[in-house]
C-alpha cells in the first residue's frame, strides 16, 4: 500500500515541478532569457597590487611600516567621511606606534562628550581607550552630506566584500580606469548619473564616493618610505583596513601552524597504532 502511494506522490511532485519547468522554457523560447544589464557586464573583478599583499598565504604577516602609512592615509583622507568604530586608539600600539604617539593621536581627535557643568553634548579630546569616532552625528547627516549615500564604517570593510583587501585596493585606484572598450561599445546608452562616479570595480559601476585619492603625493609620507603614488596609497590604506578588520590574523596563523604540526604528529601516531592493533587481523575483502 505504501509503495503505490509513494509512487503517486512522487509523480505528483515531479509533474508539478516539470510544469514550472515547461512554462519557464516556453517563456525563454518566446521571449528569450533577457540581456545582461550594462552594470553587470561592465563590472570587473578586483585584483591586488603587484606581488600581492604581505599578509597573504599561511605564513603572511602584516608589514608594520605599511600599516602605519595606511593609517596616515585613513586619518588624513578617509576619516573625513568614514568611521572605524571597532578600532580603539590603543589598538594602534599593535601596529607599532608607542604609547606616547597613541596618546597624541587620540588627543588630536575630538570625540563626543558631555559638558561637565551643564551636561550638554560637546566634544572633548580623545583618550587611548576611545574608539575612532564617526565623522557624522547620524545616518541622516551622513546621507545629507554625501548626495544621499551613507559612507559605511570601514572597520570590517575588507571582510564584508568578496576578496576584500584586493577590492578596496582596486576600488580606490580604479576611478578613471575605463572599462573594456569592447564591452562599453555594446552599451552606448550606458551613462554615469549626476553625483556618481564611474568605477568598474564597484558593484553597479556607479559609486557615490568622489575619488578620494586623486593626485600622487596627496599624503606626505615620512622619509624612507616609498613614493606616495595613488597606487601606493591605495595599497597602504587597503593593508591598514585589512588589519583593522582582522587584527588577530598574525596570532591566528602562528597558533594555526603550531597546532597543525601537532595534529599531524598525533595523527601519524594514531595511524601507527591503528596499524599495530589491526596487524594480526586479515581485513582485505575478497569477493
Amino acid at each position, binding site marked *: 500500500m505504501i509503495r503505490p502511494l*509513494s509512487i503517486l506522490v512522487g509523480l505528483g511532485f515531479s509533474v508539478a515541478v*516539470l510544469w514550472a519547468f515547461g512554462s519557464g522554457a516556453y517563456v525563454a523560447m518566446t521571449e528569450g532569457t533577457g540581456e545582461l544589464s550594462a552594470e553587470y557586464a561592465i563590472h570587473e573583478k578586483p585584483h591586488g597590487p603587484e606581488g600581492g599583499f604581505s599578509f597573504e598565504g599561511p605564513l603572511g604577516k602584516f608589514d608594520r611600516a605599511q600599516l602605519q602609512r595606511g593609517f596616515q592615509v585613513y586619518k588624513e583622507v578617509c576619516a573625513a567621511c568614514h568611521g572605524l568604530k571597532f578600532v580603539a586608539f590603543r589598538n594602534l600600539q599593535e601596529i607599532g606606534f608607542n604609547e606616547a604617539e597613541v596618546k597624541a593621536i587620540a588627543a588630536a581627535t575630538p570625540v563626543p562628550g558631555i559638558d561637565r557643568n551643564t551636561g550638554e553634548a560637546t566634544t572633548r579630546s580623545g583618550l587611548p581607550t576611545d574608539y575612532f569616532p564617526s565623522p557624522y552625528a547620524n545616518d541622516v547627516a551622513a546621507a545629507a552630506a554625501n548626495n544621499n549615500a551613507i559612507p559605511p564604517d570601514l572597520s570590517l570593510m575588507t571582510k564584508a566584500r568578496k576578496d576584500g583587501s584586493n577590492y578596496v585596493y582596486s576600488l580606490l585606484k580604479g576611478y578613471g580606469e575605463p572599462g573594456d572598450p569592447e564591452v562599453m561599445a555594446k552599451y552606448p546608452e550606458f551613462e554615469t548619473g549626476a553625483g556618481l562616479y564611474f568605477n568598474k570595480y564597484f558593484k553597479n559601476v556607479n559609486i557615490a564616493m568622489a575619488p578620494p585619492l586623486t593626485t600622487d603625493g596627496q599624503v606626505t609620507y615620512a622619509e624612507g618610505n616609498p613614493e606616495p603614488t595613488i597606487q601606493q596609497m591605495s595599497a597602504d590604506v587597503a593593508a591598514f583596513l585589512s588589519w583593522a578588520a582582522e587584527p588577530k590574523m598574525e596570532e*591566528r596563523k602562528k597558533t594555526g601552524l603550531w597546532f597543525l604540526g601537532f595534529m599531524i604528529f598525533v595523527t601519524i601516531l594514531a595511524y601507527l597504532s591503528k596499524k599495530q592493533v589491526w596487524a594480526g*587481523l586479515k581485513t582485505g575483502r575478497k569477493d
Partner: protein
Amino acid sequence: MSFPWATQYEPQNGFTKWMDERLPLPRLVYNAVGAGYPVPRNLNYMWNFGVLAGFCLVLQIVTGVVLAMHYAADASVAFGKVEHIMRDVNWGWLMRYAHANGASFFFIVIYMHIFRGFYYSSYKAPREMIWLLGVVIYLLMMATGFMGYVLPWGQMSFWGAQVITGLFEAIPLIGGPLKTRLLGGFAPDDAALNRFFSLHYLLPFVIAGVVILHVWALHIPGSSNPTGVEVKQESDTVPFHPYYTAKDGFGLGVFMILFTIMVFFLPNMLGHPDNYIEANPLSTPALIVPEWYYWPFYAILRAFTVDFMFIPAKLLGVIAMFAAILIWFILPWLDKSPVRSAKYRPLYRKFFWILMVDLAVLFYCGGAPAEEPYVMMSQIATAYYFLHFLVILPIVSQIETPKQLPNSITDAVLGSEGKA
C-alpha cells in the same frame, strides 16, 4: 543486548567493584564502546562518521557555551558583541571561528553519515529505529544551524531569518499569524533574536538526548557492515576496543587536520561576506542565500515557480522542501530489496550515484541567484530527486537481481580460507 560471545566486564579492583554495585557506569562504557561490544571486523572508513558526528556535537557545545558567556541577544548590541569576542576576548576569535566552521564540518560529517546509510541501506530492518532517530537529529540540526546563523545579526542573519520565517506565510489561513508568533513580531527584531538564542542554546542538548537513543538503538542489532550480511559467528566480529577505538582515533586525527586548516587559515571561506555588515532592515542584499548546507533544499524551494492545480507556487515550494527531508522517514518501507549493500545491487548502485550528482546540481543551484539557467536546472534536479526516492527506489528494489552474497562476513574477508 549483545552477541553471546561478547567479553564480560570484570571489575579489576576494590574501587571499580564498589562502583559496579552502586552505579555501573564503567560497565556501561565497557559494553558500549569498550571490549564488551563486538563489531563487524570489515567496517570501512565510512563507518567513522558516526563517532565524528558525536565529536562535532561536543565541540559545538563547548565552543558555544564559551561564546554565550560573551554574547548578548539584543538587536542593538549583538553585532558589536560578536566583534568584541573577535577582538577583545582572549582566544575569542578561535572560539568563534571554531564554532562557525564546526557547524559546517558537522554537516559535512552528517551528510557522509547519511549517504553511507543510502549506499549500504543501513535503514533496513532491524535498524529502522536508528534511522528514524537519525532523521530526527538531522532536522534538529537544521533548526539549530538556522537559528545560530541569526545570532551575529549581520545582513544575511537578518534577511535569512526574514526569508525562512516568511515561508510559513505560504500556509493557508494560519500562515500569517504563525509567522508573527515565530518571530514575536512582524519582522525579525529583538523578540526574534532572543527566542532564537534561547532555542539555539537548548536544541543541542535535545540533540544530545536523541543521540543517546540513536546509539542505544544501534547497540541492539549492532552495526551493519559493507557486505550487509548480518553477523553470524564470533569470527565475524572484533571487540570495539582496541580495534575501532584505534581506527576512530586515526579518523579523528584526519578530521582535525582538515578542521585546523579551515579554522586557522581559511576561517571565512564558508561564510558570506554580507554577514560582516550589520543587519539593516532598510537595505536588502542583492542575493539572499542561506548557509551552504541548506542549498539543496533551498533549490527545491525555489524550483516551484508556477502555480499548479490552484496550489500557489510558494506553497508548493514549501511543501516540497519539507517533504524532501520527511520522505527519508519512510525509506525503510520503500526499499523492499532483501539485500542491503549497494555493492551487491548493480542497478541500485547506479541510481545511488545519479542521486549524488543530482544533489550536487541542487547544491550548486541553491547557492546561485534565481535566474536562468539555474532555475531550469534546479527544476529538472528537483523532479529527479522525488522520482529517485518515491518512484525509482520502490521499483528498482522489486525488479533487480542482486549479486550472490557471501555466506558470512568471515567468508567475505577471508575468501576460501575462511571456509576451512
